[in-house]
């Protein structure tokens, strides 16, 4: 009986788990157990516990599919599929230039696959057009961290450091639903009464502040920036700042101080709805003795001012002297399984492996040497995700698109436009293990491997590289993406090596990253198999960097930048009576577009359909009852949802999780306006109206409880 030590297929917390053969008679081939590890300490959430369900009898894809004339799919041989793709690429390049072929990657791909995808794009396709779904979920935090710290690593400290904290301020993250085992690290702050959660909704995470465990601030959607400017104003005005730290480790304080002079508490209250006494209490608590951490998530980032909002949070942390110590800090909560590693090794349109800038001649030189090519043949920067998707099938845009590890018809903003855009393509090739909603739009679908069927590495939210290990043979017919890329590269007569063994690909990645910001050069699968605590940068000869900023920040002078930011009017605000502000988010039971978790019976049974959370008063004003079906509409689209009332949401706000398909996709309503710095879209504040559908189909439980 063999056990395999690996990590969860889902979020960035990458809980350690053990996979072992299931007892006879089990519908699933493997049994999943939590494994002791500094992050999850043996715990798993419902998603992790049930992850084995997708390895058994499912609607798994086991052969390449071609779209047929009648709109269905037929199975074809791999050679046929790959020949056809290579031919189409060649033709598109000849007729429309190399940038007519594009790749849309994912933050769930292993480091090895993400790296190889970036290399394949630049060398085999010769295209600049590669970006990924991480643009939807981390780019603003990354841009802010790079601007302020000179380096972007989600948590620049080990997650266990949080255990000793007495104050933790969380903005825009609902980790109680998205990565529940993380909560064990918040127990200290809760016990000290210092968990402070900022969310327009009384989310599961906000409820952790109950019973004296802390404070929940409930600002109006889209006002996080003003809230943070107000907190900065108070800590500066009340002289709660760490003057020594500011003097020795930062630059730009004078301009920052001037920039927040205009945000006195009463003004902040009038914008956010958060009373001044609460603002003052929070500011003073953050400055109190004992460990203090500030953590931000998608809630602050998924706005057109997301980079500035994340920057304001960093400024707050810096003036309090939190980063760079052993008991305090600032961090951002990475979302996707390999959201961190996925943005470091070349699938971002402006980057090369090692978190290098693609426009930097030295970076190009270095990577070209590792790839064995002339730097001149590496294309320049491409287009960020939203822009690339908008270009599909348009003049000068992408005409042939590869999608890997992403389900854009659900996860992209303004998803209706994206659905239309996909139909404009000459060719859409989707690699997935299920016929995802995006795969349904494909001309060719390629079946690939699941987490327990492959070797590789992931980089968790702490910048710690962990090993993913194979526990089970894949179904006949499914292939590794490394194999697919190698086969296509061969057909396209591409320069460079395309190894099939993930360990070899990792070794190449390590060399390519050497000397970069995210330096993996001292790591290998072999070393990782010793369970070394592999926090990057991990250059040759080092033992890794658990705490990134102890001595210096990433800028040349070693100092962090205090970057003044300005609040600007929000693009979408209700203007008509009856309008609500839509905020989107996640459920405990589902991961991302739900392509996996909606197939797990236990998860789907408890969250089978889209439910719209609204305040009971809001529901009553519109004559809506709990359990009633409604449409949620705006000029971008219409979704169908079932009403769930909750006093935990602000009356002018409506919450939809985005995990559901077809006309239950919340992103049919969200805006594709983007942040000018990070190109990350505005998911969080769309203006909508709600309407009863008429036919009332109450839930059984609702009917019974009257």
């Amino acid at each position: 009986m063999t056990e395999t030590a690996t990590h969860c297929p889902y979020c960035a917390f990458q809980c350690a788990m053990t996979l072992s053969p299931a007892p006879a008679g089990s519908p699933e081939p493997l049994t999943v157990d939590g494994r002791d590890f500094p992050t999850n300490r043996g715990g798993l959430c419902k998603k992790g516990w049930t992850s084995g369900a997708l390895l058994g009898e499912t609607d798994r894809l086991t052969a390449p599919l071609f779209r047929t004339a009648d709109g269905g799919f037929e199975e074809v041989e791999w050679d046929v599929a790959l020949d056809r793709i290579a031919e189409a690429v060649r033709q598109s390049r000849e007729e429309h230039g190399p940038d007519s072929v594009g790749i849309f990657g994912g933050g769930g791909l292993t480091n090895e696959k993400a790296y190889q995808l970036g290399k394949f794009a630049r060398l085999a396709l010769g295209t600049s057009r590669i970006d990924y779904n991480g643009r939807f979920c981390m780019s603003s935090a990354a841009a802010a961290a790079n601007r302020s710290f000179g380096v972007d690593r989600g948590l620049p400290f080990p997650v266990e450091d949080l255990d000793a904290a007495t104050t933790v301020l969380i903005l825009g993250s609902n980790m109680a639903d998205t990565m529940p085992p993380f909560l064990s690290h918040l127990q200290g702050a809760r016990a000290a009464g210092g968990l402070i959660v900022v969310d327009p909704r009384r989310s599961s995470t906000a409820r952790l502040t109950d019973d004296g465990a802390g404070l929940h601030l409930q600002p109006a959607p889209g006002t996080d920036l003003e809230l943070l400017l107000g907190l900065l104003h108070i800590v500066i005005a009340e002289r709660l700042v760490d003057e020594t730290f500011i003097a020795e480790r930062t630059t730009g304080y004078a301009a920052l101080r001037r920039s927040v002079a205009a945000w006195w508490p009463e003004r902040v209250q009038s914008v956010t709805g958060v009373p001044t006494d609460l603002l003052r209490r929070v500011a003073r608590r953050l400055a109190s003795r004992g460990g203090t951490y500030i953590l931000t998530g998608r809630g602050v980032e998924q706005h057109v001012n997301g980079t500035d909002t994340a920057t304001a949070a960093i400024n707050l942390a810096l003036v309090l002297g939190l980063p760079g110590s052993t008991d305090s800090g600032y961090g951002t909560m990475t979302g996707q399984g390999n959201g961190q590693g996925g943005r470091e090794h070349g699938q971002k349109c402006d980057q090369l492996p090692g978190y290098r800038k693609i426009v930097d001649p030295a970076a190009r030189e270095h990577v070209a040497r590792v790839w064995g090519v002339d730097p001149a043949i590496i294309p320049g920067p491409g287009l960020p995700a939203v822009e690339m998707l908008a270009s599909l099938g348009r003049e000068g845009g992408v005409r042939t698109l590869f999608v890997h590890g992403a389900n854009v018809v659900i996860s992209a903003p303004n998803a209706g436009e994206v659905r239309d855009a996909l139909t404009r393509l000459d060719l859409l090739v989707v690699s997935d293990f299920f016929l995802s909603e995006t795969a349904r739009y494909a001309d060719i679908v390629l079946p690939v491997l699941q987490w327990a069927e492959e070797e590789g590495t992931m980089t968790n939210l702490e910048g710690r590289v962990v090993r993913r290990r194979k526990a089970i043979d894949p179904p006949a017919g499914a292939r590794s993406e490394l194999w697919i890329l190698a086969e296509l590269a061969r057909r396209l007569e591409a320069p460079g090596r395309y190894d099939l063994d993930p360990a070899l690909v990792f070794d190449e990645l390590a060399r390519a990253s050497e000397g970069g910001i995210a330096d993996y050069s001292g790591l290998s699968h072999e070393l990782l198999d010793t369970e070394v605590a592999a926090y990057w940068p991990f250059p040759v000869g080092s033992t890794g960097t658990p705490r990134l900023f102890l001595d210096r920040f990433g800028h040349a002078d070693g100092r962090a930048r205090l970057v003044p930011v300005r609040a600007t009017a929000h693009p979408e605000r209700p203007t008509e009576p009856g309008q609500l502000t839509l905020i989107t988010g996640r459920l405990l039971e589902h991961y991302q577009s739900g392509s996996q978790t909606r197939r797990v019976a236990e998860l789907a049974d408890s969250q089978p359909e889209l439910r719209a959370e609204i305040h009971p008063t809001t529901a009553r004003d519109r004559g809506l009852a709990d359990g009633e079906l409604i449409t949620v509409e705006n000029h971008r689209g219409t979704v169908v949802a079932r009403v769930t009332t909750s006093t935990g949401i602000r009356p002018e706000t409506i919450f939809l999780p985005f995990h559901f398909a077809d006309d239950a996709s919340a992103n049919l309503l969200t805006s594709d306006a983007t942040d000018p710095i990070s190109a990350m879209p505005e998911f969080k504040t769309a203006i909508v109206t709600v309407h009863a559908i008429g036919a009332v189909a109450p839930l059984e439980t609702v009917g019974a409880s009257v």
Partner: protein
Amino acid sequence: MHPPRPVRVVLVGFGPVGARFAEELLPEVVAGRVDLTVVGAESGDPYNRVLVAELAVGLTEKDDIVLADSDELRGSGVDVRTGVRVVAIDREARTVLLDDGTDVEYDRLVLATGARANIPTLSGVARTIRDSSTLGRLGHAAIGTDDALPTGVTVVRDLADAETIGRAVAAKQHIVVLGAGVLGLEFALLAARHGATVSVVHTGAFPMPRNLDRGGGSVLSRALRARGITLLAHSPAEGIAVHTEDDGTTRFDALYTADGKHIHGDLLVLSCGVGARAELAVTAGLRTEAGIVVDRDLRSWTDSRIYAIGDCAHIVENDGQTDTARLGGAPAGLIGPGWRQAEWLAARFAADVTGTEHSDAPPAERASVVMLKGEGIDAVSAGAISAEPWDPRIGDVEPPNVALWADPEHGRYVKMVTRDGVLEGFVSVGMPRASAELTMLFERGGELPSDRSLLLRLDAPDEPVASGTPAGPEAIICTCNAVTAGTISDAWHAGNTTVACIGKATRAGTGCGGCKDRIERIIADREATLGTPPALEVTA
């Protein structure tokens, strides 16, 4: 071909609004499309006047209220001249004259001269009426200057005032405040909190009469008294008495009122509202009323090259009327609208000099929210608040809807005046969370929940959660795995008597582990009521 000559913009006034305008226009200066000259009467960098009282009592420091850096602006090519007054505008020559004798030419002139504190009619306190005949008589000396006040009498406006007040507060002296508007009360609260003895003298029945109704004002009175402030209502001030110090100088001694009260004190703080500093416009022949009269585009009715923003600007839609009938209205007197005007006008100028479209309409202001700043005290109002719940219909006009909550005993009062669910006005005293929510809804023009009591409940203590007793069967105990108390209880009945067993059976407690003590409590509760469950059946 030569590039076009930069447009010469002269900004008069370097307070918060002027500073914002300069900063917003900076990119055009850097790009060489605008030559900007800034003239400020005060020396030093512009600062946030809203916080002068805080500065006075030592709650904040000078550097913390500075809004812009003159040297930085100079470094970017702005000609910043501080400590110098503009004393005349020559509209023919398009120049402004400075009190150092120099001229500056302009293509566009922006007046951001702000406001000065009103000096009430008081025997013993001299004041200048800045109408055109007086100004003509006094000449340049009355332009951009303030009247000298007797020793021991001050206003709360600039850094020098802050210093005077700071000394009195630090010495825990008796301060008499004349006027119970929002600024006077904010100052009174701060001074009282920092140890001064404070008396507030005012004319009406209750404080903040322009902003509060009787209910709100009465509740606020109680709150102020509870903070040790003496309120002297119905007391129209008539004059001041002075005494002679040992060195022969005279100094404020007492304020006396029409009903014969003498209120002795060490310092008299005048807080009787503000008036636009419009004398420069008056002498230049621009139309003025409550301020410099400008249209919605912030352009003077009289001279299309001259603009006004902030506290000195009286915005009236110019519908072609040129008669001398009173126009009505007044500057908002608040900083938010001034900043929005500064941003808008700078954007307009930038669009003009770059030849691009500036389509945004000028900022339309709702009635302003007035909020009493002060820790631990809360009074906010906005809009039209005079309506009462039972007001009758007058002709065809439906009265607005009014919802009211009054609990004077506990210092709480809320009035919400709405039409179609949208606030026309509100008063909220002693209910900070309701205030915050109502303020935000008013600013946004948002709809109120039809159940208005929802807003009152925001100030209720958090719902009590029975943490000592097991929750109902539907309550989620393990959030990580969404396991309910009922499921855990069922598992216990099936023979799982330890936290670990229950974890194996239900996954409760197998995520973050934060609920293990609650699972233990459920086990203890089951054991206490039912003894032990049947042993778990062990299958081979």
